[in-house]
């Protein structure tokens, strides 16, 4: 499953990041395999989403979140 499909408030672990021109950006912001994450709230219209990454909150657009494989 990818992060954009993850339900609100469900814990998940990052499995991998797809190769894309944006993937380095996601890694820079601390999304790497092994991180435990949780979608904490969403913007109106469901996009972007706010993700708790082991203690800090990242905002991601849905198409950015779709690069993050979670389980």
């Amino acid at each position, binding site marked *: 499953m990818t992060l954009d499909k993850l339900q609100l408030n469900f814990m998940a672990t990052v499995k991998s*990041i797809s*190769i*894309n*021109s*944006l*993937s*380095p*950006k*996601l*890694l*820079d*912001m*601390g999304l*790497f*395999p*092994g991180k435990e994450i949780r979608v*904490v*709230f*969403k*913007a*109106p*219209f469901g*996009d*972007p989403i*706010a993700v708790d990454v*082991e*203690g*800090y*909150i*990242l*905002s*991601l*657009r849905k198409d*950015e979140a779709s690069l993050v494989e979670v389980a």
Partner: protein
Amino acid sequence: MKVALVGNPNSGKTSIFNHLTGLNQRVGNYPGITVDKKTGVFRYHDNPPITLIDLPGIYSLYPKSRDEEVVLQVLSSKEGEDYPDMVIVVVDASNLERNMLLFTQVYDLGLPTILVLNMVDVARKNGITINHEKIRELFHGTPVFQVIARTGEGMEAVKEEIVKPRAAKVVIPFLEGEFIDCQPATDETEVQKNYVEERYRKIRQYLGFAVKKETIPSSMAEKHRKADKILTHPVFGYLFFVAILFMIFQAIYAWAEWPMDLIDTIFLSLSQLAKESLPDGVFTRLLAEGIIPGLGGVLIFIPQIALLFTFIFILEETGYMSRVVFIMDRLMRPFGLNGKSVVPLISGVACAIPAVMATRTIDNWKERLITIMVTPLMSCSARLPVYTLLIALVIPDEYVGPFNLKGLALMGLYLIGLFASLLAALVFKWIVKSKQKSFLVMELPLYKMPRWNSLVITIWEKIRLFVFEAGKIIMAISIILWVLASYGPGDRMNTAVAKLDKPQTQEGYEAYEKQVASVRLANSYIGIIGKSIEPAIAPLGYNWQIGIALVTSFAAREVFVGSMATIYSVGEDFEENATLMVRMRNEKHPGTGLPVYTLATGISLMLFYAFAMQCMSTLAIVLRETKSWKWPAIQLLYMTTLAYLFAWLAFTLLK
């Protein structure tokens, strides 16, 4: 000696820079790029002064944005003038894992490096205890400090370390092979990705030795999440934002007016004083009518810049700004903008100058450029006097249902500004090309109280930028405009003035003086330009008098009112005594005898001012922010074209 500061955005790097240098800072340029170079001087006891370079906040050394390019370039060009003797990496101790990525990359460049763990108080609150001696050991003796930049705690030790003499030593890289000769060994995304993932794995392992984390039941985090749920709510979120905006604009209109009037009065009296106390001559007139009013015209923007940036500072510092970006992003995306464009665009309702300066937070160059290009279409406060005069002149005082027509007209003009800027953004989205993909991966920081001590530095920085950099161009243009308005070819002005009847009475003298001013302006170079463009503006319903006012108000829109008053030799204050209005209402076309200021001409003029780039100060700041003549030129061209088209259309349809 040079020392560079490197760190993530929000790591408190700038607080540390401010702490070390105080107000002793200056902003320069990196050759060929739009990123500003911030340097300061650090003095500690009797040690020789040290130059500190505050590099842009970045997350990693891989050059994906202009900021990252600059940092890599500075840290890797050994012959470059900014190549530092030492690097201080500032990291957020409450978010160590991610922040350490940049540190390990900088560490591998082989420069002498100091690691400063900032915000250890926040980390402690979150149950994080850091053994900095252990980190020092793991990184082969790299000096590590725990500080709270906000209070200055722990900074003394950092200062001592900076001035300490140190011997060169061989660095064992944290990760072998990723950086060769200070350059990334590969530009392939996949290989880079593997390196970064490897780094994170190793950082996790290292921090396992040095960091103790207790899970404390965090009611704090719960409170923040509750606030987030309200502030990003589909209804309350937007309502709250509108309420905040309403308060900000109320405050700007209420508080900016008197300092602006004060600056106006001071420069008027200075100009008067110069005229009275200096011998009459070209130089005195240049000083009293060109330079002093020109300087006043620059300084008059300071209250609005200072107020708007104070509010932006509060929004950013409290963490609310990123929530605004969060809820507005989806709405702005179809227009080629992003959530970060919202605040600059809305600030444009007060004044385009601070609005354009506020686009710096947009890290995607294309989105930033589009925001800069369309912001001046938003109806700024300088358009208000023009609109007020024209609405009073041509819009009937009637009601449509419960709505007053004059009020509707004004609201319509504001809406036109808003829609025009969004539509223009849409067009620029297709025109401007960019390799850089748009993204919004950003941190939503915790809510906190603003650090007021950096407010002064922030505001001073903005004022300095405007006054000393954009101000030069504004001064130059105002002096040129003054020369054009005060001189005419040959004896033309004097001949025209001599033709006027000399006044017989004291009362007549005042009227005579106004006539002289009018005749002088009409026969000056500007008057001649205004007359010569008459054929071009006749299709819009304008006469040469309006032509002159259009040319003079290139300096600033509100000048239109004053110029009309001078041309029609009446007092400027149209609200208190309606002479200008009466005079304009009675103005007839010389040939046909029909009134000039009809509904058609009035609307045409309002639309012209809604679209036209009649503000040299905005052009000067756009030049400064884009560092290229190309963009202000395009802006001037496209806005003037739009203004002409819509004015023509309105006049043709309503005639």
